[in-house]
């Protein structure tokens, strides 16, 4: 081996070492950011919970609970997103399973049964939070409005691929829309805006009994 060969071998080795160091630093930074995102979400949700606990006004409490649910939906996304090795794709069905278990459980309504029909559906990670918020609104609506006065019932949730769309459905066998407030609330506004952003169609129909909402999301909806 000539002097020249030795030199270039050494500089190759040192280059590899530098690249590895740079990669390690970036990985450490990514972990640090992930850690901060999760901790800050925890902080926000704990703050909302604390204030909801302290406030005597039922309307204010209910508004805070609504925000808490939304923050929890986003928090569930982040727990899921970083759990998997692939941070680019988001497993919608795994998310739905987690959120339904949490939200139905937290409602304390043991008389509401949730049935799930979930296929593996992956969406780009950038769509994870808006989709999670959208789903959370539909689920929350069903739990809050479909089964008043201790009426028992079932919420059927499905997420399947249908041609060029993902089809996500939330259907309940509750009291239906007649008894609901006709004014479009904040939740309805959020649903409308998020569907625009996701280029999704959202259709709510009478399920006789109850309400069925279907969201159709383009499989390859580029942004």
């Amino acid at each position, binding site marked *: 081996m000539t002097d020249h060969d030795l030199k270039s071998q050494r500089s190759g080795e040192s280059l590899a070492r530098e690249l590895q160091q740079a990669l390690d630093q970036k990985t450490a930074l990514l972990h640090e950011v992930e850690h901060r995102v999760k*901790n800050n979400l925890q902080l926000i949700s704990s703050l909302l919970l604390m204030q909801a606990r302290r406030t005597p006004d039922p309307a204010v409490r209910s508004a805070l609970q609504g925000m808490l649910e939304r923050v929890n939906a986003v928090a569930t996304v982040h*727990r899921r997103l970083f*759990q998997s090795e692939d941070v680019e794709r988001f497993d919608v069905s795994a998310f739905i399973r987690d959120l339904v278990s949490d939200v139905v*459980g937290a409602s304390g309504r043991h008389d509401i049964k949730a049935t799930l029909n979930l296929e593996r559906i992956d969406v780009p990670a950038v769509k994870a939070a808006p989709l999670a918020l959208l789903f959370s609104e539909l689920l929350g609506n069903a739990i809050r409005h479909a089964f008043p006065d201790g009426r028992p019932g079932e919420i059927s949730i499905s997420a399947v691929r249908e041609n060029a769309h993902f089809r996500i459905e939330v259907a309940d066998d509750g009291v239906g829309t007649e008894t609901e407030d006709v004014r479009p609330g904040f939740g309805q506004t959020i649903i409308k805006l998020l569907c625009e952003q996701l280029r999704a169609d959202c259709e709510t129909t009478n399920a006789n009994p109850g309400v069925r909402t279907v969201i159709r999301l383009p499989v390859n909806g580029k942004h």
Partner: protein
Amino acid sequence: METTHPLNVLIVEDEVLLATELSFLIEEVGCRDVGHAMSSDEAIALASALKPDLALVDVHLRDGPTGIEVARRIAADCGGIALFMTANVKRLPADFAGACGVIGKPYSEHGVKTALNFLKVCLREGRAPGLPPVGFQLAPEWAERWGLGDMAQSA
């Protein structure tokens, strides 16, 4: 009728708002909040003095990523059980430093409550009442001990 004393719980968490809120959750499920520690020294001193049944331990404390050592000391010296509550689930040691499991942050109110209720049964009966609830991952050693064999992983 047997009267079981409420589970005494120590909170080891350097974020005071989280600790305060956890304290409410602990009381709401019928456990007793016996103290808060923000650093590893405080945690070990309180655990030795109070002998809690359970310590909820964040990995990152005021003096750095010392929560793992805290859990190890509590498991080894204080007779109590540690449970991690951290955003860094993937970076826990394989043996969980003797802790019985981990609740990943960000957790939900319901997630913490169901995990605590699950643990209450495990500690009282020496057996798990079923699979651990969503969001709660059991350490392999404790899953074995509580009759779950290799099913430690919650979905």
